[in-house]
């Protein structure tokens, strides 16, 4: 009894206090109000679950070839038909989710891990450091990304891990360039001038005034980055240099379909739909995050 009294007193006291609002809480509330963001969250969650539980969802193994049943149109037995060696397209698409998500998240993690420190250094330190980093960025951008990835994969061989490395080597450029550009532009803003006039040190200005303002753009960049990496993997596999057979990759399925799809439309339609849906899901989700964090966009 005494505990319940205490609890009620406490709750009354809590009610009297002004509501505590945190950046994260605000963002979560705004995110929950955004229907498209919730749709994105749902799509990404379904994709994640599909990737994790692929073994239970797929009706057939991804590599079970059956030449007698090659190139069948969708039927009750094979929902999305079979490919040129008689593998179940639906099962291969389910397993392909794993590959796509792993590459997307892996490449983005690598990109942020390299891009954020370099971007911060370039934008905050300036001078010779900035010059050096920007020339490094220039070197990497001057090499065609696809060609560099192809070269790297030719040297080190294909496979999931090497694909992530080959794409990550150039994926950090955007995050780095964006962060630097943001810092440079923010530095000229009046609130920074005001802070400086009030006697704030450079460190304080960087931590309190510049960095918080770069979070939202970085989220946008990362959002665009995950689907971009998924797209890049699909592209490499499309050309036959990414994920090795018989591991299913949506891009490889599209690439293989090119010579058949003018008749066997299902080979072209389903893998491209899988790619498109995945990209859209991540984009909705990321855009929702951005809008949620960036309160000023929501007025």
């Amino acid at each position, binding site marked *: 009894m005494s505990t319940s009294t205490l609890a009620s007193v406490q709750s009354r006291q809590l009610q009297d206090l002004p509501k505590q609002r945190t950046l994260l809480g605000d963002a979560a509330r705004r995110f929950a109000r955004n229907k498209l963001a919730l749709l994105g969250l749902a799509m990404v969650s379904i994709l994640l679950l599909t990737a994790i539980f692929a073994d239970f969802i797929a009706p057939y193994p991804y590599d079970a070839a059956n030449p007698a049943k090659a190139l069948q149109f969708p039927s009750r037995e094979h929902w999305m038909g079979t490919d040129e060696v008689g593998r179940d397209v639906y099962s291969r698409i389910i397993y392909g989710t794993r590959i796509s998500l792993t590459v997307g998240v892996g490449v983005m993690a690598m990109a942020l891990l390299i891009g954020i420190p370099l971007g911060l250094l370039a934008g905050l330190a300036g001078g010779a450091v900035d010059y050096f980093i920007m*020339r490094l960025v*220039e*070197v990497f*951008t*001057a*090499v*065609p990304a*696809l*060609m*560099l990835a*192809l*070269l*790297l994969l*030719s*040297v080190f061989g294909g496979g999931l891990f090497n694909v992530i490395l080959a794409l990550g080597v150039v994926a950090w450029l955007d995050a780095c*360039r*964006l962060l630097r*550009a943001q810092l*440079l*532009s923010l530095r*000229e803003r009046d609130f920074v001038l005001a802070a400086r006039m009030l006697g704030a040190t450079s460190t304080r200005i960087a931590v309190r005034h510049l960095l918080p303002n770069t979070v939202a753009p970085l989220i946008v960049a990362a959002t*665009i980055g995950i*689907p971009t990496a998924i*797209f890049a993997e*699909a*592209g490499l596999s*499309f*050309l036959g*240099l990414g994920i090795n057979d018989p591991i299913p990759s949506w891009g490889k399925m*599209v690439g293989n*379909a*090119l010579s058949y*799809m*003018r008749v066997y*439309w299902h080979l*072209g*339609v389903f893998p*491209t739909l899988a*790619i*498109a849906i995945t*990209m*859209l899901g*991540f*984009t*909705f989700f990321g*855009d929702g995050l951005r809008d949620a964090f960036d309160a*000023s*966009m929501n*007025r």
Partner: protein
Amino acid sequence: MARYLFGRLVGVLVVFFIVSVVIFLLMHAIPGGPYNEDKVPLSAEAKANYMRKYGLDRPLVEQYLLYMGNALRGDFGVPFQSPTETVSGLIARTWPVSASIGGLALLVALPLGLLLGTLAAARQNTWVDYLTSATATLGITVPNFVIAVWLVLLFAVQLKWLPTGGWGQWQHYVMPVAALALAPMALTARYTRTSILEVSRSDYVRTARAKGLSDRQIMVRHVLRNAMIPLLTILAPQIPNLITGTIFIESIFRVPGLGKFFVTSILARDYPMIMALMLLVAVVWSLVYLVTDILYTVVDPRVRLEKSRT
């Protein structure tokens, strides 16, 4: 300005040098050579002859210096894939095709994107905005080869409006250009919308409105000009990719462009062609990068190229 340009030029040359060394080493690190048995059936003697003819039997450093020396004199060698012509000839034959689709795509994408983005921002949170944003999201997120496959399935296979193959007539340009233009158009529309909305809330726009300028004047003179700044960063990297050809679009629509050589050169260990393509892209990219930086100072006088004079 002259001093800045000179500095940048030196920087570009240094970048070229580093890029060429890295690519040269990487491509020679790929296992197998252009005249290995899996590529062409040659006797050991014939292979040795070829290797000697193209200097492939010399040490790497010597090969590099030889190549660069020739390249500086305008001789980029002979593509191993098609030894009857020169690398320059091959590029001169195929690049215009790629560049024309890419250029057309840009010409379509930019004005359309700007228009859609401005419309969406002006009519924020109406159906115009939602429709534009939906199209933009689709264009940005769905890869162009997916769009290309859909275009083929819909317009060539299902409706039979456009040819599935061949090259030369205007009909052959429609689908590749559309597939290429969608992404830059969508990017332009999205960023135009976002930055217009952002700029619209700034103090100087409020000031402009307070002093009685019309909406149109504010849009053109204050909003659009400032909204262009982030757009430059976003669009500039698209340009080299577009005009140097994309392998995906070109292979789906069977366009006889430069795109496929980015892959076949590596597969065939076609060293002269790999180096030439790399240099070509590096040149185009450096030019675009330099022009973008200069454009920054035009649209945003706050950005200074040289160190601010104190």
